[in-house]
């Protein structure tokens, strides 16, 4: 599958401003059996592990409710908790910066790196840095950013893009990993044995950990009560990034704050089980400010808004900010299982991406994403913080429709015409009945001898490209009912 020139794939566009609409982007994936197999296998494995560990918790639903309440409380008083976090973190020797948007966050980070005269920086667990497109920005400023999460290394070396928020290289299999490592690390006789691949990555990474004095991390949680930052991970590479460098910069969305330290008791149980199907994740790093002679001596936190406060102001949409990025929704999603993450054109794919991305983009981009769902509700069922994703999808669909229906080109859009006409027909029974009659006459032309419709024009062609449709029956139900009542009446 790997194309020449060291690319894992035709490079997916994860910038919502430039990505193609979901149905178009999904098409290429649907024709890629290897990728679909990789995605289905990986999501099956994680889902099965998750299901086992959720089943053993007798208080799972209570845990979900508790987590939802904690997150709601944090969001209801977000300003106050963020200020408290800033105060405690500063008192412990950290420096807190506030970034209204992506550009400001990038500028703040670059200024810190310039002050430190950095030429290289190591990175761990920061999807938010992908949201603000930090790597290409730093590259242009002459600073090389090295990812240190195993999956992120695969993608960075292979010039690929993440397709899942917990398992970013989920769409890549190990022979593809071997190929990328062999070429980019210059190990010709590398086997595709997982241990050999891990050892290669380990050797590659250790040199970075021991030589680069600057690190950028994300955050799973910020604790208002103590000023602590929490990062959870599986590999220990995060622990290296968080402890070895001289200077550490943590980039965190403002919604990451939790009121109390004790809230972690609920969150960590839910997160590990939901994300990787583990009772406890292997590495949980917590730190508060700086400590003399131990760990980084300079610590910065960049608190990023970038559209989040506008989401906070929405009645239905604000629950999106409860997300703890566990990815259970994408593993459960029957749409994601077919398409993988790249089709969503965002660093946040799957059901959560379908509601988060358009809102972060303030509804200026990614308008096709709220429609990338059959509304089956599997995402809501597994969400550990009870985000009613279908409800938010519907709200966003309404906002997209309100935008589109004012556009001139929609006047001739068959779906818009159809839905407007249907609304009129449904408003009067006699109109509806007349339309049923007209439809029966009209569809006769398309109905085969077997009583089925095999090909329809226009929007209907999207149905008949893979499915037949039973032709309309001779008699509607209401006509049958009327006839039956008359017959009964005549008998009496």
């Amino acid at each position, binding site marked *: 599958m790997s194309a020449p020139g060291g690319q894992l794939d035709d490079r997916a566009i994860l910038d919502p401003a430039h990505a193609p609409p*979901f149905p178009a982007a999904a098409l290429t994936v649907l024709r890629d059996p290897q990728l679909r197999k990789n995605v289905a296998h990986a999501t099956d494995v994680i889902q099965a592990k998750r299901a086992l560990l959720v089943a053993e918790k007798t208080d799972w639903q209570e845990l979900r409710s508790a987590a939802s309440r904690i997150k709601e409380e944090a969001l209801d008083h977000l300003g106050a908790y963020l200020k408290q976090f800033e105060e405690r973190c500063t008192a412990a020797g950290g420096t807190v910066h506030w970034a209204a948007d992506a550009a400001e966050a990038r500028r703040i980070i670059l200024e810190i790196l310039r002050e430190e005269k950095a030429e290289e920086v190591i990175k761990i667990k920061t999807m938010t840095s992908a949201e603000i497109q930090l790597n290409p920005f730093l590259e242009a400023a002459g600073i090389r950013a090295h990812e240190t999460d195993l999956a992120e290394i695969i993608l960075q070396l292979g010039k690929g893009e993440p397709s899942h928020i917990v398992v970013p290289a989920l769409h890549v299999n190990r022979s593809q990993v071997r190929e990328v490592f062999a070429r980019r690390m210059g190990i010709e006789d590398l086997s595709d044995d997982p241990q050999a691949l891990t050892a290669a990555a380990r050797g590659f990474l250790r040199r970075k950990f021991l030589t680069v004095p600057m690190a950028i991390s994300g955050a799973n949680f910020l604790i208002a009560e103590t000023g602590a930052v929490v990062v959870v991970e599986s590999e220990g590479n995060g622990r290296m990034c968080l402890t070895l460098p001289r200077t550490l910069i943590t980039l965190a969305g403002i919604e990451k704050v939790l009121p109390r330290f004790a809230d972690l008791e609920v969150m960590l149980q839910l997160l590990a089980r939901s994300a990787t199907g583990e009772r406890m994740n292997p590495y949980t790093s917590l730190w508060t400010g700086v400590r003399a002679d131990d760990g980084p001596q300079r610590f910065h936190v960049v608190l990023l808004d970038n559209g989040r406060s506008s989401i906070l102001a929405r009645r239905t949409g604000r629950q999106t900010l409860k997300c703890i990025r566990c990815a259970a929704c994408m593993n459960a999603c029957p749409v994601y299982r*077919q398409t993988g993450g790249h089709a969503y054109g965002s660093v946040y794919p799957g059901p959560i991406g379908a509601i988060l991305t358009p809102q972060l983009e303030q509804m200026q981009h990614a308008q096709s994403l709220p429609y990338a769902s059959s509304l089956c509700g599997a995402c809501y069922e597994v969400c550990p913080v009870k985000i009613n994703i279908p409800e938010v999808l519907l709200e966003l*669909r309404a906002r997209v*429709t309100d935008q589109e229906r004012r556009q001139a080109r929609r006047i001739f859009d068959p779906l818009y015409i159809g839905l407007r006409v*249907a609304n009129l027909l449904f*408003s009067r029974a006699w109109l*509806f009945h007349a339309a049923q009659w007209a439809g029966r006459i009209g569809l006769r032309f398309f109905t085969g001898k077997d009583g089925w419709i095999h090909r329809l024009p226009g929007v209907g062609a999207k149905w008949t490209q893979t499915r037949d449709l039973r032709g309309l029956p001779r008699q*509607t139900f209401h006509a*049958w009912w009327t006839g039956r009542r008359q017959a009964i009446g005549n008998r009496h």
Partner: protein
Amino acid sequence: MRVSLFVTCYNDTLFPETGRAVVSLLERLGVEVEFLSRQTCCGQMHANTGFRGEAFSQAKRLVRLYQDAETVVIPSSSCVAMIRDQYPGLMEELGNEEQRKQFAALLPRVYELTEFLVEKLGVEDVGAYFPHRVTYHASCHALRGLHAGDRPVRLLKKVRGLELAPLENLDRCCGFGGTFSVKNGEVSSAMLAVKLLDVLETGAEFCTALDNSCLMHLSGAMHRQYAGMRTIHIAQILASTQEQPAEVSP
């Protein structure tokens, strides 16, 4: 007991045999059935596509139409889920005090067909006879919207002659999703292809569900592929007797 049948717009138009089966089943169980001929649609298609204003106008029309009904029975889990999950938000946002009151009074009287049979009438054995191998597809709205659980299966298990074939990955969507099936026609088809593997694997003669919408999707592919399986709404199985066998479409 007297119930008002809301047959739904697509059953009225496309699957009248389902409506007829509901009538014959309920009358056999001693329930008096009425049908308000002014009924049209619950508004689900508009609501799910983002046309909230239109969805609300259909919602308020339905609520007004059934305000005097003792009990409303609907042979579709997705239309019932629409009323339970989406009407409250529509009424809250676009309705007035009177409409909200009217809706609140109606809501507890709305039943999905199998819910009505088991929860309201208290019957699981409806005296049906359907000598075929059948698999049950749990539509997403039955499973996660109405939390129907194994209620439909309990009803099917009491049908004489019926051999129930369990379906793998029962909780997985068939990919219909209303306008999703055309707006994202290719992804919808991919989901359908995967679902169909499990459905055909059962070796059943019929696939049944609480919703003709999923069944229309599944049967569309079965027919296109000459797959040798047919679909049938659960009402038609439950209405079927030795004397009056189910109406089965080709």
